[in-house]
């Protein structure tokens, strides 16, 4: 089956990608994440979650954790900044 992330990984062979998570920001209103390891902070301004390599912080306003499953999550609201801590 077609996998969007695998296609991008394959097209960038020169860069060695070791990370195990994928994150898509759609128009600054929705963030989709694959490979999260759990929520660490939940508020309307910051939502943080762990990934294998560290922690991702999402800053914004009126943030809602729209969906949370074992491996994936979806955050909606006004997304201002996405930060990765290693």
């Amino acid at each position, binding site marked *: 089956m077609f996998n969007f992330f695998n296609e991008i990984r394959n097209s960038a062979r020169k860069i060695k990608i070791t990370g195990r998570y994928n994150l898509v920001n759609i128009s600054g209103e929705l963030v989709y994440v694959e490979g999260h390891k*759990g*929520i*660490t*902070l*939940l*508020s*309307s301004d910051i939502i943080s979650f762990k990934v294998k390599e560290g922690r991702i912080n999402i800053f914004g306003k009126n943030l*809602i*954790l*729209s*969906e*949370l*499953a*074992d491996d994936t*999550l979806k955050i909606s609201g006004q997304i201002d900044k996405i930060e990765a801590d290693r």
Partner: protein
Amino acid sequence: MKSYCKFEVKALRKEKCINELSKSFLIAEIKEKEGNVLEFKVFPNDAKKIKKELEKKEIKILSISFRGIYYTILNVLKSWGIIAGLVIGLAFFFIETMFVKDVEVWCDEQISESEIVALVKPYSVNKIRSTINTKDIEVKIYDSFENLSFVSVAVVGQVLIVNVKQEVKPSEMEDKISPILASDDGRITNIELVQGTLCVKVGDIVKKGDQLVMPYVINSDGEQQKIMPKAKIYADVWLASEVNHNSHYEEQYRTGKQVVKNEVLLCNLKIYDNNQTCPFENYDTIIKDKKIIENNILPFILRETTYYELASRVVEENFEDVKDEILERCKENNLQKMEEYDIIKRENIIIKQAGNITTVIYTSVVNREIGG
């Protein structure tokens, strides 16, 4: 999620709480509220398991509510007020349908519908259907009205239907028999008598309205016995039409000059006039009314009166030039007087002249039934 279950929980470590739940269930629309309160939605099927899980972790559940079409219907059905309303409504409907509410009468024009309704109403309207004795009502109608041949009463739904037919007597019994009269002027050519007494014979000339067959017979005792006259009587009927031609007459015609007068009317009251007067001695007029505004609030009407000047001239037309045309017109007039299937036996044309006027008389003879 069209149908979902909404949880409101109070947890100190809310992130840990939802992380653990998300390992087994899909959690949606997680919102943080004041005072460590967390709100989230799950599939209704997972609600029981999640509740158990939360209780096991000793997390305080503030509320659980189900949403969606299925749960809305369920909530409505669980509402005792609505159920009671429905039950009372249905009970009222069933009780209502047990009563007769109206009377419908099917009858001839000769019978008074209102009289039947007035008679039947006390025994039927607002009475329970099963208690109405239709046979009894039928007898009452029979007794109250004369000359009825058929009465039927039936309860259909909430309506009592009364079907009444008047007695049809043979014409001999009704004293309404009358002689056969001639429908046209003519000479009798053939008689086919079925019953009655003949007043005419073949060859007689009769006028329209003359008696042809009398409504009685003389029996062997010499007595007059009433009978419906039946016969077919045929006659040659003369049809005539006349056209006059004037070879010298005065004709009025429009000269082409015209004047238009405009008026504005509101509710037939004149509110504007262009002060135009008719300058012609002889004229004819055409009046046209036009709505200025297409609404009924302000019915302004523009009345346009056109005056056409008329002059007269003498027209001379020789009869011989238009003879064929006049004869044709005469024949057409005569044809209009004929009935379907009439066959022309003879035809005759008479031309009379008196001064400027020529008269053309076209006569045709047709054979048709004039009584029966």
